[in-house]
Structure formats: structure tokens, C-alpha cells
């Protein structure tokens, strides 16, 4: 009896030791990022310590007060928000169609959706670059270096993700509800706005938040398909390395700003990340 008891206690100690060290490993790089962002150049190149008592706010204020950086930040906010809303609307319509109608070839549609989400973004750079700069043009106006271009483009990975995430939730809404409404003479639009959207509300909220975060995080397309006007914060961050090179404090501050949304939204959506990332194949 006492043997199993002491074994249990050892088990508890092991579990906590493991998870406390895992938590430290997860947080250490992010904590170090914060520390670097709070240091002056002189402090930085002294002996590296993990303790930080002062806060050098200029690292944050300087980028935040440059017009270029303000534009990056605004662009990121506009692109991510518009894209998340657009994705949510389209995904509601699409999942409603896929869940309520037996459409021929919907298996192929699902396959194709996975492909778009899984394809290496790098393979899309050149095709899209050529299309954005040469093919889609009206006079001098092209999609290249525009926010609308990015907003539409980010549907490429966010829309498949959103459809996979919401399909299960849509299937969970009993079809009898819409049928009763149709018998009472409601239109498809009424059924969607009055029955489906309110019932799928929480799922839609999660979809919007995760799509927003993915759009905010995107780098490769933003870097290749924008030059000045539509640059986003992730491309601005990369410029710290390639262009200015050595301004580590400011680079850390910008990185920290760019990962704030992840920190803020984490607690709300972490239960759904797995479902979204595995196309609903793994549920919790």
C-alpha cells in the first residue's frame, strides 16, 4: 500500500517537473525576445543575463513613430481584419452548401481544398507574381502592391482552413430546423441569417480569430507581392534583418508587437487549433 503511494507521489513529482521544464523551454525564447526589446545597445552587449529591471521604451517608440512602420501596422490590421471577415462569410455559405446539398463531386472539392492549404507557398510566388503584375490589369492598375490583392489572396489558405473547421459544426445543426422554417415559407437567406448564423456563432467566432491570426502572420506572399504601399508588419520585421541589419533592440520590439495577437487570442482559441490544423480529422 505505502509502496504504491510513494510511487504515486514520485509520479506526481515527475509530471510536474516535466511540465514546468516544458513551460520554461516554451517561454524562454519569447522571454528573451522581450528582454532584448527592453535593453539599450550598451546593456545588450554587456554580459548576457536573463534578469531585466529597466525598460528602454525607445525601442518601441522609435518604430511606432516612423511613418513607414505605421503604414505596415495599419496594412496588417486592415488586411487581416478584412480577410477574416470575408473568409467567415464565404465559409458559412460554402459549408452550408456542402452540408445540406448532396452536390456531385464534393469529394473532389474537399481534396482540392486540402491541396491549397498544404501546397508550399513558395511554389505560388512566381505564378502569382506574374499574374498580379502582368495578367490582372486594367490600364495601369494591377493587383500588385495593393491591400485588396492580399485580402483576396489570403483566402487561398484561410478559406480551406475555415471550411474544414466549420463543416463539422454545420453538420451538427439539425436539418429539421431549416426544414421547419422552409415549410413556414422562409427563404434561404432568412434561414441562413436567422437560424444558421446564430447557432454557428461560437464556431464562426473561432474561425474569424484563427483566420485573422494566420493572415496577420503571413510573410512570403506579402514579401513577394507588395513593395511599398501594401507592406505588412511581417515584411517590415524581415527588413530589420536584411536592410538595417543590426538594430537588434528595435527588431525585438517589432517582433514582440507582431506576436502580441497570438498571446492575446491564445486562451480563447487553443482548444480549436488542433481541429483546424488537422482539417477536422482530430477532434477534441
Amino acid at each position: 500500500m505505502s509502496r504504491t503511494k510513494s510511487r504515486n507521489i514520485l509520479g506526481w513529482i515527475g509530471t510536474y517537473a516535466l511540465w514546468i521544464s516544458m513551460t520554461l523551454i516554451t517561454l524562454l525564447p519569447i522571454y528573451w525576445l522581450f528582454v532584448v526589446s527592453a535593453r539599450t545597445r550598451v546593456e545588450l552587449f554587456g554580459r548576457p543575463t536573463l534578469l531585466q529591471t529597466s525598460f528602454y521604451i525607445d525601442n518601441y517608440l522609435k518604430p511606432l513613430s516612423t511613418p513607414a512602420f505605421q503604414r505596415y501596422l495599419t496594412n496588417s490590421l486592415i488586411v487581416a481584419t478584412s480577410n477574416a471577415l470575408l473568409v467567415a462569410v464565404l465559409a458559412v455559405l460554402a459549408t452550408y452548401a456542402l452540408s445540406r446539398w448532396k452536390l456531385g463531386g464534393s469529394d473532389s472539392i474537399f481534396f482540392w481544398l486540402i491541396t491549397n492549404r498544404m501546397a508550399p507557398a513558395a511554389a505560388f510566388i512566381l505564378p502569382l507574381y506574374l499574374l498580379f503584375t502582368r495578367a490582372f490589369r486594367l490600364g495601369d492598375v494591377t493587383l500588385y502592391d495593393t491591400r485588396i490583392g492580399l485580402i483576396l489572396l489570403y483566402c487561398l489558405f484561410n478559406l480551406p482552413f475555415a471550411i474544414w473547421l466549420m463543416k463539422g459544426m454545420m453538420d451538427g445543426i439539425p436539418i429539421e430546423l431549416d426544414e421547419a422554417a422552409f415549410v413556414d415559407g422562409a427563404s434561404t437567406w432568412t434561414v441562413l441569417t436567422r437560424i444558421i448564423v446564430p447557432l454557428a456563432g461560437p464556431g464562426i467566432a473561432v474561425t474569424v480569430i484563427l483566420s485573422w491570426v494566420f493572415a496577420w502572420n503571413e510573410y512570403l506572399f506579402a514579401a513577394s507581392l507588395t513593395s511599398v504601399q501594401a507592406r505588412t508588419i511581417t515584411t517590415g520585421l524581415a527588413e530589420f534583418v536584411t536592410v538595417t541589419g543590426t538594430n537588434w533592440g528595435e527588431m525585438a520590439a517589432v517582433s514582440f508587437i507582431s506576436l502580441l495577437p497570438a498571446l492575446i487570442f491564445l486562451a480563447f482559441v487553443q482548444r480549436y487549433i488542433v481541429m483546424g490544423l488537422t482539417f477536422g480529422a482530430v477532434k477534441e
Partner: protein
Amino acid sequence: MRSNRMGWGLLAPTLIILGIMGLLPFFYVLVVGFFDWNVVSATGKPIWTGANNFRRLVFDPNFLGAMSRTLLFTVTVVVSELVLGFVLAQALVKEFPGKSFFRTIHALPLMVAPIAVGATWRLMTVPGFGIAPYYLDRWFGIDYNIGRYAEHAFATTILMDVWHWTPFVTLTMLAGLSALPKEPMEQALVDGANRWQVLRHLTLPMMMPVIITTTFIRLMDALRVVDEVYLLTGGGPGDSTRFIGIHIWRVVMTWTDYGYGSAVSLLVYYFTLVLCWLLFIALTQIGRQQE
């Protein structure tokens, strides 16, 4: 009342946007791939070269090097993450106070922008003030420098990826383990099986669907890694961390070799289609088994 036309109408906007952004570009480069086209060349105009670009691909040491490097990276990270994630998930199955806190923190890297992950790891490893080179030198006397030593840079990209994506494996495995029935394992333990036998003959076979799905998804994501490696090492030193995505970036954006870039993009896209097709078959098989 429920006409098929209505259903297709609701689906249409999605199909149109994805068709324009995801399918049309590849028909365009299918054509461009048969031309020699570099905007900074003497003419700057496309010149018909037949299948030359595709022939060049097969013998290009840069492309083949990037491919094999990417495969080595992918196999290493996927295997390490699967093993580590499975062990961590085992340690999260039982209930204990603080479990949801640990789980939430563990999921944090999944939400962070890959480019910020790269920046974070660069700040950790940069010679001069990074904590990694400082303490490795002080405690173990190791001269760690990812800007100078190819092996250090490659190993660091692997560590970074493991840090970034192991949580994904942990969470999927945890979801799978929590959904398993408890009785068969308990019965086997009562009948005298040891823990290893239970794991080997009961838990692992029952977890197969989840393990296969996770492996495929991690495989696809590891093959397309760009952002974080680009910010950490820029593909260097030399070509030691120039993975396929970074190689394409150089061909397309740095050298503006559009004809050859089209061939590379098409080939990589084709590989993706094949891999996704396998994944899709696996997923539908699993779906059938569960029904």
C-alpha cells in the same frame, strides 16, 4: 425547394476565388515554363526553349541539393516531434491541477508568426549577445556560431522547428489518447501484461489513424518551411540551410529567372498534389474505419 443550383450558387464565390488564386496561376506558369525568360537578360522577352527548363531541373545541383537538404530536415524534425509529442501527450492524459495552464502555454508557439519565431531564435543565437553562444562557451567551451559553422546552423533550424511544432503533435496525440476507451488497457494490465506490451499492442494500433494524420500534416508543413529559416540564417552559411522554399525564392525573386522558376514551381506543386492525394486517401480510409 432544395435545388442543386442554389447549392452551387452558395459554393460559387469560394470556388471562383480559389480558382483564380490557386489554379489559374499554374496554368499560366505551365506555359511560361516552356520559355527562356529573364527580365534582366539582354532582351528581357520570353524566348521559346521547349523542355529545356525541365531538363535543366533534373541536373541542377542547386535544386537537387536543396531537395535532399529539405528531405533530411523534414525526416529529422518529423521523427523527433512525433516521439517527443507522443511522450508529452502521455504525460498530459491524466488529470492534474494546472493541466489546462500547461496545455495553453504549450500551444503558444503554434500561434506565433513563423517570421517572429525566426527573429526570436536569431536573437537567442546571434554571436555577441545571444544567450545560446554565451552559455555554451562558458559552460561547455563550445564555439557555437550559426553564422560560421554549417552544422550549427542546420542543427539550430531543426531545434527551432521542434520548438515550434512539437506542441501540435502533443495536442493531436492528446486528443487521440483522450478519445480511446480505457477498458481494454485496464483489462490487459489485470491479465498480467506490462505497460510496454499495452503500449505496443493496444495503444499504438488504436492510435494509428491519429498518428498517420499527424505525420502527413507535419510532413507537408516541414517540406514548405521558409519564413523562420530565412530570418534565422538567410539560407546560409553557404548553402547549408537553403531549403527548397528558399531556393525557389532565390531563383524567382533574386535571379528573376522566370522560365526556370516556373519549372521548379510546377514540379514542387506536382509533388504536393501527389502527397495530398495520399493524405486524402488515408483520411477517407480512417473515416470509413471509424464508421
